[in-house]
């Protein structure tokens, strides 16, 4: 096994990978951009080297610098995480050329799956069902409109090089098409350096269901069940669960077989994900393959009991898969909520900034993967994710109850987050029933009723007044200068036991 591995990523996924490295007794090497000097990943690593300024193109995407750091620090392998260089065939190639193990698939597989139009052709040959659509990128908005009209609205405009909802637009009417097409091209160009987009049929009320696959370099390939990632805002997943509660066992079997076939069509090695749309008739269509670890991999880990990063390392080191498909058993139900610095009430606008206070949930079957800490800053330069909160439960209802408990414990102060929105979603009937589709979030907003006043409205105001009063008292005592509110904290409040004298008498309502 490797003795030192470089993690070519940032944020929570870098920390999560380094945790597994530390468990395996492998030294971790972090790379970081200047504004990430004070990030958790730099704190967590065994070694850390700055590779450039904030802009990803000058730091996290600098293949040359990253490989140089790996060589000079003595790392034998590089884990790319997700995003950044994880799906860039030239990087996989450059690692190979430098004699460093790339923890991920070979350049060929990344390339084959990375270009969506090429991937469609490959999948078609492998007998994988596809959504109807333009087979290749279209440059002119007018040509694209013709294609769109042919397959009938609604249609989806997607970036050829894309992922994560960037450069993606749903269009319902012909008259909105041209503006959306141009917006998508612009966004794609900015995000991926490639403005190519294509058009496909928009499947109504679909679920986004994806299969985790794992393949070793000895020709063995298994799937580790599915994830339902239909809860999306702005075409990005925010809540995921495993298993998918509406997937029939026979469909699961068929989809799993197709997922393995898709992976094997590109001689896949490592961990990958085959994304499908699942419609109401249990028909499914291949969307794309992500040739890397997925953000939502923890829910697969929770139901399977497998550490996917550990398995990635073992596969990269040439080991055989230690199990067959039949050995794998799913247990219980797992949910992930992505906690973002964003304002759900303002179209999920990012709200990065200083985390005045951060107190994560704990206790049984709760897992928080984060890349920040109390008094750290959610950077304006990158994805505003604060943490992935994951729970496991004996069944789906149990897991939902546990997630609500975990969210209720989460304290994130100083910036706007989507914690309250997650709680609202988990109480929504459509979500409770499990029958939601990818339109869930807009549907929830549309069906919102007037908020009823709660006890918190009154007590929250009282708390603000009491906090202010206590603060003023401290200022008064210290002769006018407000330096510390801690002075009225634990130590001093013990001077007076009078309150217990009264409480001892059990003054209850």
């Amino acid at each position, binding site marked *: 096994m490797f003795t030192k591995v470089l993690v070519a990523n940032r944020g929570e996924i870098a920390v999560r990978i380094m945790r597994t490295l530390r468990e395996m007794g492998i030294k971790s090497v972090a790379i970081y951009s200047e504004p990430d000097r004070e990030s958790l990943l730099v704190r967590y690593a065994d070694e850390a080297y700055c590779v450039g300024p904030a802009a990803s193109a000058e730091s996290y995407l600098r293949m040359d610098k990253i490989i140089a750091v790996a060589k000079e620090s003595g790392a034998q392998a590089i884990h790319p995480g997700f995003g950044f260089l994880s799906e860039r065939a030239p990087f996989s190639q450059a690692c190979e050329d430098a004699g460093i193990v790339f923890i991920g698939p070979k350049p060929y597989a990344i390339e084959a799956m990375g270009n969506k139009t090429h991937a469609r052709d490959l999948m078609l040959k492998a007998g994988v069902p596809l959504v109807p659509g333009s087979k290749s990128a279209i440059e002119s908005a007018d040509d694209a409109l013709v294609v769109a009209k042919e397959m009938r609205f609604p249609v989806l405009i997607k970036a050829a090089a894309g992922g994560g909802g960037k450069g993606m637009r749903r269009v319902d009417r012909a008259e909105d098409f041209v503006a959306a097409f141009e917006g998508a091209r612009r966004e794609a160009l900015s995000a991926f350096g490639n403005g190519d987009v294509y058009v496909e049929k928009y499947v109504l009320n679909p679920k986004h269901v994806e299969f985790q696959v794992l393949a070793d370099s000895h020709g063995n390939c298994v799937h580790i069940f599915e994830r339902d990632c239909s809860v999306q805002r702005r075409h990005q997943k925010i809540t995921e669960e495993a298993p998918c509660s509406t997937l029939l066992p026979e469909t699961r079997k068929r989809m799993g077989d197709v997922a393995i076939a898709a992976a094997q069509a590109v001689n896949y090695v490592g961990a990958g994900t085959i994304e499908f749309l699942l419609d109401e008739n249990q028909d499914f269509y291949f969307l794309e393959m992500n040739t890397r670890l997925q953000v939502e991999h923890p829910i697969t880990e929770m139901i399977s009991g497998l550490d996917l990063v550990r398995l990635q390392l073992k596969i990269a080191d040439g080991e055989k898969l230690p199990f067959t498909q039949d050995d794998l058993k799913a247990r219980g139900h797992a949910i992930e909520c992505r906690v973002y610095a964003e304002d759900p009430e303002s179209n999920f606008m990012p709200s990065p900034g200083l985390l005045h206070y951060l107190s994560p949930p704990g206790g049984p079957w709760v897992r928080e993967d984060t890349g920040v800490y109390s008094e750290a800053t959610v950077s304006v330069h990158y994805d505003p994710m604060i943490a992935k909160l994951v729970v496991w439960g004996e069944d789906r209802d149990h897991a939902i109850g546990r997630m609500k408990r975990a969210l209720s414990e989460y304290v994130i102060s100083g910036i706007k987050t989507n914690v309250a929105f997650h709680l609202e979603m988990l109480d929504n009937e459509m979500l409770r029933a499990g029958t939601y589709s990818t339109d869930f979030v807009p549907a929830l907003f549309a069906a919102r009723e007037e908020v009823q006043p709660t006890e918190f409205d009154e007590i929250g105001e009282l708390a603000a*007044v009491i906090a202010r009063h*206590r603060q003023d008292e401290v200022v008064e005592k210290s002769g006018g200068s407000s330096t510390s509110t801690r002075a009225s904290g634990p130590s001093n409040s013990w001077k007076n036991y009078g309150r217990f004298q009264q*409480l001892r008498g059990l003054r209850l309502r």
Partner: protein
Amino acid sequence: MANYYTPGTEEDRQWSVETLEDGRYQAVGPGGKSFIVDAFSPVAGRVHMLVDGKSWDMDAREIDGEIHVQWRGLTKNIKVLNDREKRMAVAGIGGSKAAGPELLSPMAGKVVAIKAQIGDEVKEGQVVLIIEAMKMENDLKAHRAGRIESVNVSAGEAVEVGTVLITIAE
């Protein structure tokens, strides 16, 4: 005893708080409702209150002149004035501003498109600008109805939180 004022629908809501001899607080709210509060601060910025047997473990943290209150995922920002501040507010010092003509950028990012020109009549909520932040395009809407008086940024320009983007005359 001290008085405090929180914003109400029409006028400020008055609270009075007295620290009792045993260290607890007696608070009387706007409707005359009285609370006995046993409070302590587990760590700076947090307050735990026992009120009539109920336990409330909260964040109550002053940020930019407001108290940010948080409890089990729910949040609420409240401006609390004491007597002195209330007098100053009444005298017009440090009082709350009416919405001005300026549309300020709520985020740091890059202007990717400007959807309105000087002289355009816009409705409140109409998209007037698109700003890209963290690789996502965000629609910025007119904060009030009126006529575009000036456009202070251009496409491609980087903006900070608080940059004046556009001014809208009523």
